[in-house]
């Protein structure tokens, strides 16, 4: 062990401190189910403003993820939120997509509504890359909430999607 190693190496006390800090964050989060419940309900409330989500199939957890260039993993919130449909918006202006770090939005599909679901998932991935503006304007023309009732609008919707791509 060279002299340089001696200076570079963290003391075991410091290692213990770092480990404990990370450990306690995840322990505390896992041990307070009330907090997790509140976070879950708040996330559902926010997302439900823009789209109809499946609250039964929703999964939100604390997990750990590796930060780039860092050997230690940090706790992260993982959210898997199945979308039923995009809501018709009530004139929402441009929305900054502030998702919780580490959250992935899955697009679990409902078997009865395949067409709508397929469009929704494409819509969702488009959302990730683009501003919500255009989609909201498009939504204003649609009245689809839960079911695929308005076929005309829906194909118009699809047409829009095709143009975008």
């Amino acid at each position, binding site marked *: 062990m060279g002299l340089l190693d001696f200076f570079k190496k963290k*003391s*075991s*006390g*410091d290692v*213990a*401190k770092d*480990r*404990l*800090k990370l*450990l*306690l964050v995840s*322990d*505390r989060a896992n*041990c*307070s189910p009330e907090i997790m419940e509140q976070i879950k309900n708040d996330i559902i409330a926010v997302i439900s403003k823009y789209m109809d989500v499946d609250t039964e199939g929703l999964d939100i957890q604390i997990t750990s993820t590796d930060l780039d260039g860092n050997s230690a993993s940090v706790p992260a919130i993982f959210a898997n939120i199945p979308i039923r449909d995009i809501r018709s918006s009530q004139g929402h202006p441009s929305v900054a997509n502030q998702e919780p770090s580490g959250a992935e939005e899955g697009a679990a599909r409902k078997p009865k509504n395949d067409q709508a679901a397929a469009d929704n998932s494409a819509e969702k991935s488009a959302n990730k890359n683009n501003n919500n503006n255009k989609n909201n304007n498009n939504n204003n023309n649609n009245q689809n909430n839960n079911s695929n009732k308005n076929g005309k609008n829906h194909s118009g919707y699809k047409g829009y999607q095709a143009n975008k791509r």
Partner: protein
Amino acid sequence: MSEVIVVTSGKGGVGKTTTTANIGTGLAKLGKKVVMIDTDTGLRNLDVVLGLENRIVYNLVDVVEGNCRLKQAMISDKRCPNLYLIPTAQTRDKSAVTPEQMINVINEIRDDEENFDYIILDCPAGIEQGFQNAVAGAERALIVTTPEVSAIRDADRIIGLLDSKGLSGHEQVIVNRMRMDMVERGDMLSEEDVKDILQLDIIGVVPDDENIVVATNKGQPLVGDSSLAGQAYENICRRILGEDVPRLDISSNKGFLRKLSKLFKGSK
């Protein structure tokens, strides 16, 4: 009005019983009337650490089951007036007592004409029935931990549970078995580290002291004597009474080189 303090930790073996014995004895030596209650039913040890194991006639379980009056189960320590112990049963387990029964016992002690100043509950390790019983009537908690990863992790969990029982703001930490030589080498968490991690005030630090083993062997708590641990425990008792006592220098002064380096660094 009696103050009800629970001494807990989560982790086993960090020094709850030793701390209860020393704090109880220390407060009594400082003139207060103290009752200590062992809630570790089935694995009682407070009696043996205090050297009172031969004086037990009735215990906590007898009290809650109505086999005796409360005062009959209270053992007074001949060496230290004002100090009383309610031991628990060795041949039962923690299901023998419920939290409601604990609250009744505590209220009965509070209403007693003796006007006890402190009721100190020695909590068992864990988070199950024993912990629930010990915390039931408590208004204040002293969380004992050692400067080690597993103890601190468990202490944090216990603090969370105490918060959920309404003790938030009435919790303080005692760091036991501190070794300043290891802290200086960087091989042990310091008091500041523990405070930073647990985010609670540290009411005192007790050094790792051989004299504790000797004291337990003899059944005589060492609080107030000339040993480092004895001084540390006395300081904690004074702080409980509201005195502002500066931290003890608990680094041991062995070795010539150490004395020399202290000379150069100046006294800490």
